[in-house]
């Protein structure tokens, strides 16, 4: 009987074959064939032998790495251990690949797509390039992330002092684009009364951080994993002051403190402390939606809604089987941070709520982007 060892995920591992040579041989053989793993047993729900997983981003990018991390876990937990083949279709900031998937993907459960905030946002903003619709898809799993806004110590000694300065001094913030992952951060800073000059055209969040480190940007934002590896050392050496985290959404839709940053207040806390009430109005509404779709549900595994009901259930069950295990938590700490993926119906509800941006809010946003940041949609 062949047993699967999670440390050697790409094929059945025989104990007698565990020498380096044969592992190396395995890599060579597999890379020449381009085929991974073996299909061990047939299953009840008619699981396809191969699942093609479209990733509308380039190889080695954040979403690609995320997907590759999940292929092993999904494949090991779906009955019949289907082979998951990642198909990178980059272009147009994930819009091209998603359009192609919407147009071509078969609804037999053998085709998945992995999307990210930059796939969700253009759909919400009704970008004219978007020809996909999240209503046509159903989620298997979603992974959240958090993030922290931080500032130059030259603005003030602590967060309170900096918030005061922000209200009357124009600060610079290096962003990828005005409608990118930084959109909720721009909205949050606007709600706090900060006058932000967003300099766009960074090719990654990392480039934005570099501009901050060079002293060109006054304020910056990083998601959890990048914050720990690259910003925490700056904070420790007094080169950056953390201001607030974005928090996380609980199952009731309320924002709670981020488990990764338990000592840091969330944006909502900061706002309430300074204004005495919870944020409201179109800006707050837009913030809530874009935070939910870009952070709480940042990366999603989806498949066409018309896929066989039993198969969808099978995939969701597979995800349920591993997300709470200790082994997964340990492995996912480095990849996802201290967040647990959300599975199945819960994602579906949150997703529908997050993606439905009211027309009036959207119009407000378009005007705000044009007037405040000179960005055209």
């Amino acid at each position, binding site marked *: 009987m062949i047993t699967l060892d*999670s440390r*050697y*995920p*790409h094929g059945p591992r025989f104990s007698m074959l565990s020498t*380096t*040579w044969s592992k*190396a041989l395995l*890599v*060579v053989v*597999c*890379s*020449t064939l*381009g*085929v991974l793993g073996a299909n061990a047993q047939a299953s009840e729900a008619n699981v396809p032998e191969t699942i*093609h997983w479209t990733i509308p981003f*380039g*190889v*080695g*990018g*954040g979403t*690609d*790495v995320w997907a*590759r*991390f999940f292929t*092993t876990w999904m494949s090991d937990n779906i009955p019949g251990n289907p082979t998951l083949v*990642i*198909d*990178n*279709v980059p*272009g*147009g900031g994930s819009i*091209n690949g998603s359009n192609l998937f919407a147009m071509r993907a078969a609804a037999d459960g053998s085709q998945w797509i992995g999307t990210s905030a930059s796939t969700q946002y253009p759909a919400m903003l009704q970008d004219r*390039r978007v020809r996909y619709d999240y209503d046509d898809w159903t989620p298997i799993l979603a992974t959240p992330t958090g993030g922290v806004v931080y500032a130059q110590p030259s603005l003030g000694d602590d967060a309170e002092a900096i918030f005061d300065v922000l209200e009357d001094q124009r600060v*610079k913030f290096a962003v990828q*684009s*005005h*409608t990118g992952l930084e959109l909720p951060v721009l909205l949050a800073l606007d709600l706090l009364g900060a006058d932000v*000059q967003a*300099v*766009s*055209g960074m*090719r990654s969040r*990392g*480039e934005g951080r*570099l*501009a901050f*480190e*060079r002293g*060109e*940007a006054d304020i910056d934002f990083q998601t959890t*994993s*990048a914050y720990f*590896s*690259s910003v925490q*050392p700056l904070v420790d050496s007094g080169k950056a002051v953390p201001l607030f985290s974005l928090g996380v959404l609980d199952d009731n839709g309320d924002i709670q403190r981020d488990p990764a940053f338990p000592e840091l207040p969330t944006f909502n806390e900061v706002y309430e402390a300074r204004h005495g009430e919870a944020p409201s109005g179109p800006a707050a509404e837009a913030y809530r939606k874009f935070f939910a779709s870009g952070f709480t549900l940042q990366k999603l595994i989806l498949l066409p809604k018309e896929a066989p009901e039993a198969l969808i259930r099978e995939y969701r069950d597979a995800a349920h089987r591993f997300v709470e295990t200790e082994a997964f938590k340990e492995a996912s700490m*480095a*990849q996802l941070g201290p967040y647990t993926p959300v599975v199945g119906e819960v994602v579906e509800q949150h997703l529908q709520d997050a993606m439905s941006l009211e027309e009036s809010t959207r119009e407000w946003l378009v005007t705000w982007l044009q007037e405040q940041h*000179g960005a*055209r*949609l």
Partner: protein
Amino acid sequence: MVDVLFSSLGQLFTVPHMLYMVIGVLIGLIVGIIPGLGGIAGMSLLLPFLYGMEPSIALGMLMGLVAVIPTGDTFASVLLGIPGSSASQATVVDGFALAKKGQAARALSSAFLSSMIGGLIGAMVLTAFILIARPVVLSFSSSELFMLTLLGLSMVAVLSGKDVFKGVAACGVGLLVGTIGMAPATGEFRLPFEIDYLYDGLPLVVVGLGIFALPEIIDLLVKRGAIAEQPCQLGKGWKEGMTDVARRPRLVARCAGIGSLMGTIPGLAGSVVDWLTYGHAVQSAKDKSRFGKGDIRGVIAPESANNACACGAMVPTLLFGIPGSGTAAVFLGGLLLLGLQPGVSMLETNLDLTYTIIWSLALANILGAALCLGLARPVASLTRVPFVILAPLIITLILFAAYQATRSLGDLFALGIIGALGVLFKQANWSRPAFLIGFVLAPGAEAYFYQAAQFQGTDAFWRPGVLIIGALIAASLVIPPLRVYLRKRRTAVSSLTPEETAPLALGMIDMLLLASLLIGAGYMWWAFDDLSLLGGIMPRLAIAIIVAACVCEIVRTAIKPKAWQLQPSHQQLLWIVGFFALVGCVMIFGFLVTAALFCLCFLLLVARIQPVAAVGLAAGVTLFLVGMANLLTLTYPAGMLAGL
């Protein structure tokens, strides 16, 4: 620190480490040799195996791959005139010219030896530099990066030689083509004719293949014969190439130095480095007349630089988590899959792994170059084969390579259009490197200028770094013409080379190009009318450059003595039409069927070789394409017929 340095060296020479590194090197060489694949494809072949591997071993494998790609891609550049990847575009200019002279073996062995030395120098620089690199990298702000793009652009003047205005006009066209896509400042789209394919701009691979490879292929088809126009001397050339490098240690060292430093600056992709060092080789040479016609220094300079640059690109990748090149971006993904977060911690907690990476780079460079040196002689004999036999295979190969760029049919059409432009440029002797430099640097120049202006205002242009680079640019523009002028004054007119005294050449294609560029510029100006000020400033600047250069060229030809030059183009244009017909067939019948039938028919009807051989070759091509599709999870265009 020193003990870490050597303990990681010890780890390198263990069996598993060496074994996986050799696998990485072999895969790297293969994807390097196949045009259009390069580092990203290689990395994606290895990524599926990374998760769960021992980090130091996995890193050895990845580095083996990263290190040798700029080595392997030299084969295509030198032998076929196909820029294998963005890192070896400058090599094409003189490398392919040498191959045509029958000196392919010499060019290849020079290239590999300088690659190896360059890679080793790069690894050495990296060893020490990585510890102090942080402040240096941080001192390059957006304004310095903007000035560096200008420095790259100033190479146009160096590369276009006597026909400066034609070169500048070509560069302007490159700039204009490079602005297609999203405006970095406002997020507006600059799309000629609202074509969806152009949202991300044209891919560099497609432009490189179109501007260099297609015109050369067509030229060879028109001329008939083999790539090598003169008899080959493989054995002698091989040794000659080695001595060529040995005789120019300082050029190799300088270019490797430039390469590794440029690599460390995030945001300036490796594609600039080879042109900068090529320009440097031209500038520092006493006799410039043979550049572009087969000067070995034109091969040595970019090849010493590009491997060093791959080493340098590890600095921003490891220290800041910001990839310095496309390959480095995928390498970064590999690090994340191994559970390693790049950043300051790479030096503090993972210094041993960092040095494993550097040692692997050095070792893989030696291995890769040695393997390639061994292959150089037999492979160089390809240049003796009659080109009609190679042509269908190469055309299929560049179609495949171009299709890798975004995997859409648009790639093939873009290849044809840029190819047509390339044919015109080549026949009329307009600088094709200038076009490419403009294209490569346009997005950087625009984004960095906008960022510098936004971040720093007018202070941006008084920073010391900016002034130093500015002085470099001024020197590179002013000193060479000054020297020529002084020499002219000192010597009698009769001692000038015939090239310098020859009258200006003017031909049909020159007229055609000048007229259509002016008309095109006018149209584009009008078409970009609805862009905002910020979003439209760069294309307008490019248009202004084109117009100014064209006008200057017209004035120059009007006032100076000129000779009418016959610029044949009918046959060439016929082949371009043929190429589009081929793309049309791909659209209708699908890529695989078209490629197989095209090879077969071409070999039988045009090349007239034995039917058995033709069938064999066509089957080989088909097998290669099918194999690649499996390996890279690639779907070829299926054609309209398949949809019925």
